[in-house]
């Protein structure tokens, strides 16, 4: 049986593709090519004219110790956020997958944080952990812990990681739960009869069968921590203290928008783009091979 409809004429397929192509062109290729072009330019302080300077922006950038620091910060931040949000979401999903009475309520509550905008999520966490206003900051200090994310870089990092993880758990949770529910019950029952306890069953059956979901989420989460956490960092720490939470994407903003160095900022965003493309390619190339489909 031929299921697909066949259209005569060449025009219709292209017309159908146009909306998608226009959106991609306007919102991705155009700004991306602008960024690439701009990274070869130097603008004067008033933005009146610009001159072509080739790779000078890149050379200047790679000579900056701050840039390497931002890279290191990004590595720490993104691995913490990805690892924590994935593992906590998986833990919650396995709990929600059990036949508990409260499971439906639990699922709905888990999904709410996803509806909160990153910047708002950041502000919420800042309220809770603000050194002078925060509801949690006081108890922490009373316990003798000198909590101050405004001055201590590690505390600031912990705070943005918490906010970013909190927000991403909801998304990961949804996908993990769907993945868990797609595993046939009888396979797990067979495992139980085969003498595997709950813990062993999880690691030898459930986890391998979840790997397509895990892999998909890994890709999505890496993109999330590289780009979408900008709002959280901006609202909570503004990249501080002393650049302790300035990730690469935040530095793009800080240098370009706040520092006025459009060329340098464009060069950074090009590098960032290349890194994410390479990371995603590596994930598809190597991780996907081990994935059980």
């Amino acid at each position: 049986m031929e299921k697909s409809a066949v259209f005569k004429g060449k025009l219709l397929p292209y017309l159908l593709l146009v909306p998608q192509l226009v959106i991609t062109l306007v919102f991705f290729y155009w700004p991306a090519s602008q960024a690439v072009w701009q990274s070869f330019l130097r603008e004067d302080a008033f933005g009146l004219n610009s001159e072509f300077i080739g790779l000078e922006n890149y050379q200047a950038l790679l000579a900056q110790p701050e840039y390497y620091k931002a890279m290191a910060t990004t590595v720490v931040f993104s691995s913490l956020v990805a690892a924590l949000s994935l593992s906590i979401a998986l833990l919650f999903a396995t709990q929600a997958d059990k036949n508990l009475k409260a499971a439906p309520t639990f699922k709905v509550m888990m999904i709410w944080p996803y509806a909160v905008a990153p910047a708002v999520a950041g502000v919420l966490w800042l309220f809770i952990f603000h050194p002078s206003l925060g509801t949690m900051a006081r108890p922490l200090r009373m316990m003798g812990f000198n909590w101050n994310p405004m001055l201590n870089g590690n505390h600031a990092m912990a705070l943005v990681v918490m906010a970013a993880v909190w927000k991403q758990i909801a998304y990961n949770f949804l996908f993990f739960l769907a993945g868990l529910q797609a595993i046939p019950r009888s396979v797990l029952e067979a495992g139980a009869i085969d003498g595997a306890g709950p813990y062993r069953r999880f690691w030898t059956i459930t986890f391998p069968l979840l790997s397509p979901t895990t892999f998909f989420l890994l890709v999505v989460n890496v993109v999330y921590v590289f780009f979408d956490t900008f709002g959280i960092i901006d609202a909570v720490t503004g990249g501080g203290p002393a650049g302790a939470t300035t990730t690469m994407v935040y530095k793009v903003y800080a240098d370009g928008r706040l520092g006025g160095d459009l060329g340098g900022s464009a060069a950074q965003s090009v590098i960032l783009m290349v890194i994410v493309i390479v990371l995603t390619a590596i994930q598809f190339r190597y991780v996907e091979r081990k994935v059980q489909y």
Partner: protein
Amino acid sequence: MANVSLRNVRKTYPGGFEAIKGIEFEIGDGQFCVLVGPSGCGKSTLLRMVAGLETVTSGEVDIGGRVVNEIEPADRDIAMVFQNYALYPHMSVYNNMAYGLRNRGMPKPEIDTRVREAAQTLELAGMLDRKPRQLSGGQRQRVAMGRAIVRQPKVFLFDEPLSNLDAKLRVAMRVEIRKLQRRLKTTSIYVTHDQLEAMTLADILVVMNGGQVEQIGSPLDIYRKPATTFVASFIGAPPMNLIKLGGNEIRAQFAGDSRSAAEAGILGVRPEDLTISGAAATDGGITLNLTVEAIERVGAETFVYGTRARAEKAVSATPGELPEGEVIVRIPGQDAPAIGASIRATASRDKLHLFSANGRNRIDI
């Protein structure tokens, strides 16, 4: 090697639905027990209770002299073959079979011996490195069997293991399972809704309906002497003809035996026990005058569907497939009367079954 005893086993779901309403029977060591019944009769639930995948509300499940109600599936020393095979999709055939042995900490060389032996038996030797998705339905089924036999458990549990196979393969695997079980002499419980599978495999046949046991016995005993009209119409294909007795000419034939005639409400006669003949039955047999409605030729035999001339209504017992007043006659060969013809079908007295009016009791004549 073990007996399995069920003592007044019940299962009530949290919603209040009673799936198993007090079941009691014993399966001797090495016997092959088949649970058969229509869908929803509780046969799979009962099997899962023996496996430990469903809790037992009350009563006792006893495997090898040990009450296992509170014992985990893994510690009951059973192996189960699932309807959808439930193979581990990410493991090779070898690992699928070895998994249960590794979990029990068996030394590697012994695992290897057992897996290769099972693979040899099941003709899977060349496929040990393949993943389940690269196998055909029949091969997957054999891997599921292999996973059960490498464990050398006390009891095999089969939950409709052949229902996902095509008809030809089903027959072949049915024979394989029986041969394998005979050789291994492992006590087995097998759930099916297919009465043919039930008849051919069972040492003990348990016919279930609505969460209760209708009849237990050897397949031929059940075929020869069904205890209720439900069993009568469920075991045997095509089903037994059941005819409601009114104050009529059929009842008159039992006039000599006043007791049975008085109590009986339903007469049963198997299609294969009816013959088309010119003369009326003698010696207290019955004669049915039929008008031929339809003919089914299957080759070696032919089914004649007729309606009774003076229609006494046949009983429609669940799952009685016969419409009221219809009678099936099974005759050998391909010759058959013409549609619309009037025929006379007779059966001798020893081929007749009598049941009480509600169909729940058999009356021996």
